């Protein structure tokens, strides 16, 4: 029988050069689960944003921090947790940050940062934060169940079913 959930975990040093490694892993996991191209690309951006935040904000320059990533592969969704053990901050303040650019804003008001969380929230189906020790972002992308591969499964099932009894 198929297990209901598989877990893949990795821990990286909190350095920008490893963001691409996790992105590649996320791409592989999502591809394995049968997500369509656009959803895989969304997941890649979301996970990169979460790790970028941890790399940039969690630890001070001279601290050797780590970022933990956990992929939980569930039948209907992929749950990704990105967690650091650095400075935790006010989650409400983070949530207020989540907005797109304002074209009517003056040049000085245009912010070069702060779009990361907005993108995570927009590209994923569900996002939660936990700030017990450090920050953990848990983001979920649902699989569209009635697409190609599962459709094939269903056809197979109906074949297996004994007929005319």
């Amino acid at each position: 029988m198929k297990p209901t959930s598989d877990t893949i975990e990795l821990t990286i040093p909190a350095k920008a050069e490893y963001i691409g490694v996790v992105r590649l892993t996320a791409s592989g996991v999502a591809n394995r689960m049968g997500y369509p191209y656009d959803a895989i690309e969304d997941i890649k951006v979301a996970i990169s944003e979460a790790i970028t935040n941890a790399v940039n904000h969690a630890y001070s320059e001279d601290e050797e921090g780590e970022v933990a990533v956990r992929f939980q592969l569930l039948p209907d969704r992929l749950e990704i947790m990105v967690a650091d053990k650095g400075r935790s901050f006010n989650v409400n303040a983070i949530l207020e940050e989540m907005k797109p650019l304002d074209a009517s804003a003056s040049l000085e008001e245009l912010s070069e940062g702060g779009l990361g969380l907005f993108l995570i929230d927009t590209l994923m189906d569900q996002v939660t934060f936990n700030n017990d020790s450090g920050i953990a972002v848990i983001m979920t992308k649902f699989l569209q169940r009635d697409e190609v591969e599962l459709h094939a499964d269903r056809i197979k099932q109906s074949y297996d079913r004994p007929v005319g009894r």
Partner: protein
Amino acid sequence: MNLNILQGKAKDGGELLILKGELDAYTAPKLKETLLELVDIEGASVTLDLSDTNYMDSTGIGVIIAAYKKVCKNNGTLIVQGLTPRVERLFDITGLSDIITIEDINKEETR
């Protein structure tokens, strides 16, 4: 997982930067350095070609905004061209499409 920045001349005589590869928090500082230097002169004219940029996130957008702010102060122009559907989606979601000048080069089809 790298970014190659090729520098040349645009059709309009301005500077051209072609970005090949992935633009993320690791590669963005390299672009920021090159790009901000180019836009740091009065009347600067810079074109960014993203046709071969196969990954971009908010760090790349941050660099473009920083360059845009600087180019505006210097009365110059910054044009972004060759957006892949993915990058275009990102520009639309973040609202960057409404702020910067985007040129469609795919219609001209010279390469």
